[in-house]
């Protein structure tokens, strides 16, 4: 065969190969586009919040839904959008004590009724104490802090339970959560600053967040991911490098605010399903305990205790994927889980002399 013929054949093969490769790429983008087109609508139960220029979203005021997560699961809010299990007026009656609970959906009580949250159960564990649930679904530590700073001052209280899960640090690193814009904190010359305010208005259902989550379908993204360390430890360390100092500054400022308001701050780490077995989160919890030790801010970590609960009991403390007719609460505490948290937390609160004294509870 002549040289020119060989090069022609090689050329044709190369062109064919390029066409096949291009076709594979084109099909890949086509499949991704098709999947994006079929993204389901935002879960209905997220529609319990409204736009807020500072926080991104707050609870809708004066809600009274009787079957929010399924038959019989009530969702009630007061005029300030805080979840309540009975009527609440800002001033306290003489002799009454109040605990404010801040946090995310685990504190809010996603999937359970108003009176089945650990915050509500605390009233049974600590007789004579009233509680106010100032948590909101999807909040990061930053938003929970900002809401308390802005709106809690009208509600006199003696104790502030500032509860969070591992993912609340992750939420501090972003300017939007599941497509909903939010503010973000940063440190400038050691002081906390808010960025992305006024928070851009939510412009309607966005498929962007879900679509971004689908990018790993692309083979080029898979190729990159295989070259990057995707372990939990690395991911958490990456977030901590961005938000850890900010979180500590938030805790210190919360302590100052509480002192000014005559309240006692208690930081509470709530175990999520990912905490049931030892893992990357343990490093973060250890660092939090060290911070508590050095700063003197009380810190309650319920992880070690929940790990001693037999697995078949622990299973009943978290909402299973199909337990509720409304999606979006899977993995959160069941009523049994909230009751357990309340019992353990009350025990810890009584063991902190300043908190026990403030609540008029007999110290342990």
């Amino acid at each position, binding site marked *: 065969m002549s040289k020119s013929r060989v090069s022609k054949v090689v050329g044709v093969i190369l062109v064919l190969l390029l066409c096949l*490769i291009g076709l594979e*790429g084109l099909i*890949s983008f086509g499949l991704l586009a098709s999947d994006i087109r079929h993204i389901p609508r935002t879960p209905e139960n997220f529609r319990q919040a409204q736009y807020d220029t500072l926080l991104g979203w707050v609870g809708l005021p004066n809600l009274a839904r009787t079957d929010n997560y399924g038959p019989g699961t009530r969702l009630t809010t007061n005029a300030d959008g805080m979840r309540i299990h009975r009527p609440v007026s800002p001033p306290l009656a003489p002799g009454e004590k109040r605990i404010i609970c801040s946090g995310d959906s685990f504190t809010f009580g996603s999937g359970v009724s108003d009176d089945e949250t650990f915050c509500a159960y605390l009233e049974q564990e600590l007789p004579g104490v009233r509680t106010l649930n100032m948590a909101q679904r999807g909040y990061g530590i930053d938003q929970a802090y900002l809401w308390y700073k802005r709106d809690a001052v009208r509600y006199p209280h003696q104790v502030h339970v500032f509860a969070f899960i591992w993912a609340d640090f992750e939420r501090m690193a972003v300017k939007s959560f599941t497509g909903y814009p939010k503010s973000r904190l940063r440190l400038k010359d050691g002081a906390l600053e808010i960025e992305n305010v006024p928070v851009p208005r939510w412009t309607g259902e966005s498929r962007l967040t879900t679509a971004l989550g689908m990018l790993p379908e692309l083979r080029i993204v898979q190729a990159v991911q295989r070259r990057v360390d995707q372990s939990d430890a690395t991911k958490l360390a990456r977030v901590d490098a961005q938000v850890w100092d900010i979180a500590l500054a938030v805790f210190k400022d919360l302590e100052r605010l509480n002192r000014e308001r005559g309240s006692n701050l208690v930081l509470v780490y709530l175990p999520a399903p990912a905490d049931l077995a030892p893992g990357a989160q343990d490093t973060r919890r250890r660092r939090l305990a060290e911070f508590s030790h050095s700063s003197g801010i009380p810190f309650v970590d319920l992880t070690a205790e929940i790990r001693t609960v037999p697995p*078949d009991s622990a*299973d009943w403390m978290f909402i299973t994927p199909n337990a509720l007719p409304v999606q979006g609460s899977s993995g959160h505490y069941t009523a049994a889980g909230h009751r357990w948290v309340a019992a353990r937390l009350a025990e810890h609160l009584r063991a902190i002399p300043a908190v026990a004294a403030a609540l008029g509870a007999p110290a342990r």
Partner: protein
Amino acid sequence: MKRVLAGTVVSLAIVIATLCLLEGAASALLFVRDYRNASPPSGLIRPHTTHDSLLGWVNRPGFSSPDEYGKDIGLTTTALGFRATGTADSVSAQEGQGLVCSGDSYTLGYGVSDDHTWCALLGIYTKRRAFNMGQADYGLDQSALWYERDARRAPHQVQILGVTDAQLERMASSSPGGRFKPELALDGSKVVTHGVPVPAQTATAMRDAVRARMKYDLRAVQAFVRITGVDGRATQAKRIDERWPLVEKVLDDLAAANASNGSRLVLAYLPSKRDLRPSSPDERRKKLAAYAQRRGTTFVDLTSAMRALRPDSIDLSFISRVPASAAPGTTNQYSDLGHAWIARTLAEKLAPPAP
């Protein structure tokens, strides 16, 4: 203006073509690399099993792995190579009363400890000594062959054959997932066993099975499956439907083997996650029910009872949280709760009617 427009279109086309070429090249490179580096799935063949020339694999007799499925979730085998039933053995069974449980991983109790399998619990509820002849990844054919060969060593009056949909599908292959096993076929009205003696398992066969599945990573293949609905994996699974007379004949032979052992055969359909919603396994269940009715065999189908459970109870009936260091593949097997429910429901259904 025309030139600007043409320039823009050409630039756009170049960008799109480059992106497509990059994506396609990434796909091709990943495929080639994965293919070259393919290895047999680690941990699929558990240390408690060993090669068997008739069945493909069986339990090693007298084996103990105290943390097989997580800390203190152990697996023990008896001298006969059956799974031990733990504390259930010490429960007073009526003299000489025994039951044999046959099936796949859902009967073996893959993921739970010896005394938490439905077989062990059913022994307690029915006051019979239980012999667990379940084995992971067995087809219905292997369960039948094992019973016919070894069950007479276990004194029993009942054999409960736990049938799952996957177990039926495995019957249609001589090497599901690359694991060598015998394959039964009908020769006239007789069942003949092909592929015996079953060769010793090779890593190459399992690696080849992994490689065969890799074509589904290619986006063009995914698109083809999505558009045409032609999926080789589903086609393989459906082969058993074309061989249904074989299934019935194997069950006939099993019933005859039971009779010669002084036992009776009970078919129990064990629902797995794929049975929780109406789907193709429903047809197979119906065919099993019709067969059982024709032959007068007791058939207990637990599917509708499980579907009627509360959704959170269904969720918790299957393993979703796997303890560290557990054997691979325990997800979606029955949990302790699932086994307890199966045992209790079976005991109720099999109990003689009250006078």
